[in-house]
């Protein structure tokens, strides 16, 4: 599709206009921390090379989502409508994460309608990175930091204007009517280095040959890595009783790093120890999602590395696993 030039001087004006018809969510800096937020004034948006502290996943998969309500009259009402949203300034790694999460939530025999509805009502506007940031390793995870086509519009900083590449009807509709100049950029090629950081091994080998206890020694089991990760999608249902006897059921984020996550009624727990749970986290990302949906569920965004209170590093853990397997393989 076409590419349009958006002069930086006109951007705030355009976004304020867009804000009249859509809920606008974009990176905003608050007390020094860059994070996705519902935008009040377009001027507060920060489109920079910095990556938001948290990913924008909660706008498609809310941390706490009302899914249904049992009324006090004994009936049931489904969850409310979701607003038309523009999610702006999504880095290629986070667009990759949305693609992975969509595979989990919107394919197969059952569809998570909450996620599917939000995704359908959301226009995804990407933004390229110009430089690598500390702890990022997207280049080793098949993500091109300068371009992603997994969105409706993709912005590239060209000095005094943004080149807006339009990839869908939704994106076209968003920018229609602003009288923006079409520029002929030619087809840009996405340069991806195929799977530099992968785990290619059998589940059972990974269970048996790796000393997970040693790899997991430092972990506190706090679960921050899972909350902050753009691809983590585990959840739990919780009921809340209202005053008049109605009950709202919520779908809430959960974490495989917590000991009760797999606890059975009998008291038996298939993942009893910290190392069992950390193994689940790494292998779910690098093996199971790939086996089930064709993608590795780690984009290399580096958030878990930056946020871990004890410096656990999934990048070095995966490398070390590969080293161990290679050494064993040679023997």
């Amino acid at each position, binding site marked *: 599709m076409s590419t349009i030039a958006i002069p930086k001087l006109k951007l705030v004006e355009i976004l304020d206009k867009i804000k009249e018809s859509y809920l606008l969510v974009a990176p905003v800096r608050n007390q020094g921390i860059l994070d996705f937020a519902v935008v009040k004034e377009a001027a507060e948006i920060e489109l920079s090379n910095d990556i938001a502290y948290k990913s924008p996943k909660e706008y498609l998969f809310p941390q706490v989502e009302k899914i249904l309500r*049992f009324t006090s009259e004994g009936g049931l009402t489904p969850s409310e409508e979701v607003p038309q949203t523009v999610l702006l300034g999504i880095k290629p790694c986070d667009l990759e994460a949305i693609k992975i999460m969509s595979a989990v939530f919107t394919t*197969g025999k059952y569809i998570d*309608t909450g996620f599917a509805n939000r995704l359908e009502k959301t226009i995804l506007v990407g933004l390229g990175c110009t430089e690598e940031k500390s702890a990022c390793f997207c280049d080793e995870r098949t993500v091109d930091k300068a371009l992603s086509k997994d969105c409706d519009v993709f912005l590239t900083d060209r000095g005094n204007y943004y080149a807006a590449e339009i990839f869908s009807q939704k994106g076209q509709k968003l920018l229609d009517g602003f009288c923006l100049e079409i520029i002929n950029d030619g087809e840009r090629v996405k340069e991806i280095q195929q799977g530099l950081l992968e785990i290619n091994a059998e589940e059972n080998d990974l269970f048996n040959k790796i000393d997970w206890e040693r790899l997991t020694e430092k972990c506190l089991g706090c679960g921050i890595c899972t909350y902050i990760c753009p691809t983590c999608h585990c*959840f739990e249902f919780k009921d809340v009783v209202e005053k008049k006897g109605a009950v709202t059921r919520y779908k809430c984020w*959960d974490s495989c790093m917590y000991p009760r996550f797999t606890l059975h*009624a009998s008291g038996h727990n298939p*993942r009893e120890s910290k190392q069992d749970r950390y193994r689940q986290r790494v292998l779910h990302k690098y093996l*199971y999602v790939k086996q089930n949906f064709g993608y590795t569920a780690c984009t290399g965004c580096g958030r878990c590395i930056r946020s871990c209170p004890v410096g656990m590093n999934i990048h070095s853990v995966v490398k070390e696993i590969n080293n161990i397997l290679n050494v064993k393989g040679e023997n």
Partner: protein
Amino acid sequence: MNSPYTPQKAEIVDIIQETTSDLDIKTFRIKFATGEEMNFLPGQFVELSIPGIGEAPFGFASSPKNKEFIELTIKRVGHLTDALHSMAVGSTVWIRGPFGNHFPLKELEKSKILIIAGGLGLSPLRPLILTMLDDENRNKYCDIQMLIAARSTQDFSYRRDFAKWRKVKDTKVLLTIDRAENGWDGLVGFPHNLVADLDIDYQNTYGVFCGPPVMIKAVSNKLIELGMPKSKILTTLEMRMTCGVGKCGKCNIGHSYVCVDGPVYRLDQLSSMPNEY
């Protein structure tokens, strides 16, 4: 588009007290408030909700042929099951499903079958047993031996079935308890220690069993040791579940999601999976 998390209103139409020891297992007969039938296959499960308390998965325990109601046999172990056990006939519950895969009924035809059940493990096997023993189907299946284990004489569910099952041609029902009791003339001991003494052609028999994880592991090892091919051994597993439809990430064993790929597994499948259950 309907959400797979939305349950339908249902009513408890009957309650059967199963165990006499500590009143902790009951069978609930349930039907949809709309009168709609629930079609399921042996091995599948539902998610049952009590608003304000929560939701939990339970295997169907009744015959799929019974369109009047479904039966769920439920042990009291926590919040939801406590609340359910204090409910009376006429109470409302909410149900969604059926979910999961099922026993390969067609494949089991023309074969001899050995059923092994430990405790409440008989419950998910009961729809299969009732289907195979049904008059209409009885000629499709050959000899059916059942080894049913409970902790003590007080802990057997479905006692009312045993006499009926024994009367069906070419079936054998053996009961065992963990420790000897006065007046007990059945077997004593864990099922994995007893199977070797049964009169079974292991190479040509399908083994179908269910029980707690320790029993599943012990029985699998024994059946393999006795020469039963892994492809002819079937079991049904239980994992902590939330969604029941492969989204919440709670029930996996390695890459296999028990709520969609299971709960019924073949042993050759299970033995290539990590020991995470």
